[in-house]
């Protein structure tokens, strides 16, 4: 069961690592000082979650790889994050809409995983749940303000929803090789989370005077290592120092 558990932990950890790194790109560029700090906090929360998840993934794998080896010495094809996490940061509306969509997914995931029979997963989930609840509160309030704001902010928020929507379906695709883990109560079946996710999304979009597109083709591939061109660029930037100076201490 260790190989499926390793893969499941990579899916969890890689989502947070890639989204955390993407979010860190806002550092020094956010629209106002307060938001700059908020986004940096959120980025660090994600990277902190990834740190715990990849550390545990390395331990489960039992091959001597720690979280740094997994973060800095895997290529894009070995990453298991959902595509929505790696898309370019876009404008502020895209960043906010993505944090709302993925944050809400995370809350539901952590709620389920905090009951995991695996004590380490349950512990990480309980800690991450508090963080993700705040991320959703932050992003959700912004979705409503941008959508129900000025003509400009409404147009940008609606464009962000349209851009990201085709990437939301992949979040709820349950990998076949995880079924034994789900049956044993170790991990959660993400396909069961979609109903609750959609209900909250519809409620917030409605309050934001925004609409979700209907019947669009859903992208997939990230969970199988088939990524967009954007992940390679992100990893190149994230990994360059560790790869140029392997084992360096600072």
């Amino acid at each position, binding site marked *: 069961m260790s190989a499926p558990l390793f893969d499941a932990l990579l899916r969890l950890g890689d989502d947070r690592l890639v989204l955390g790194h993407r979010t860190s790109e806002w550092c020094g560029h956010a629209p*106002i*000082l*307060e*938001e700059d*700090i*908020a986004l940096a*906090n959120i980025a660090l929360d994600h990277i902190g979650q990834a740190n715990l998840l990849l550390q545990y993934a390395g331990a489960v794998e039992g091959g001597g790889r720690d979280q740094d080896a997994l973060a800095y010495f895997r290529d894009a094809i070995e990453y298991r994050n959902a595509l929505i996490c790696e898309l370019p940061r876009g404008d502020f509306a895209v960043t906010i809409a993505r944090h709302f969509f993925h944050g809400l997914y995370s809350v539901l995931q952590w709620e389920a995983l905090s009951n995991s029979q695996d004590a380490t997963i349950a512990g990480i989930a309980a800690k991450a749940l508090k963080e993700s609840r*705040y991320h959703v*509160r*932050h992003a959700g*309030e912004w979705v409503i*303000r941008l959508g129900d704001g000025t003509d400009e902010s409404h147009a940008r928020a609606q464009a962000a929803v349209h851009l990201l929507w085709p990437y939301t379906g992949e979040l709820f695709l349950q990998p076949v090789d995880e079924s034994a883990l789900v049956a044993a109560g170790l991990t959660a079946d993400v396909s069961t989370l979609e109903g609750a996710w959609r209900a909250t999304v519809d409620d917030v979009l409605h309050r934001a005077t925004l609409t979700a597109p209907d019947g669009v083709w859903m992208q997939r591939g990230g969970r199988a290592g088939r990524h967009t061109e954007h992940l390679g660029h992100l990893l190149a930037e994230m990994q360059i120092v560790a790869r140029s100076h392997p084992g360096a201490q600072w």
Partner: protein
Amino acid sequence: MTPNSPERSWPLWEVFTQGRDGEPHQHAGSVHATDAEHALQNARDVYARRNEAVNLWVVPSAAITASTPEDMGPFFDPANDKAYRHPQFYKVPKGVKVF
């Protein structure tokens, strides 16, 4: 109008943090925000992200009435020669070690 000109910036809010249950809220600083919930979130991110607080107040800065430098004399000076307003003439009972 530049993006940072006063006409375009969001209202200012004063932030008060309570370090522990039972302690008084103390002024921590200020944030810009569009409304109360937004101010609360910004205050959390700027002033309470390192475990500094268990509770937050945000107050519109415009709602605060402050004394002015001109008030200095009439407000505060008269206290100096009215020693009877200070409680140092009371004998502290034996056993009270707080003072």
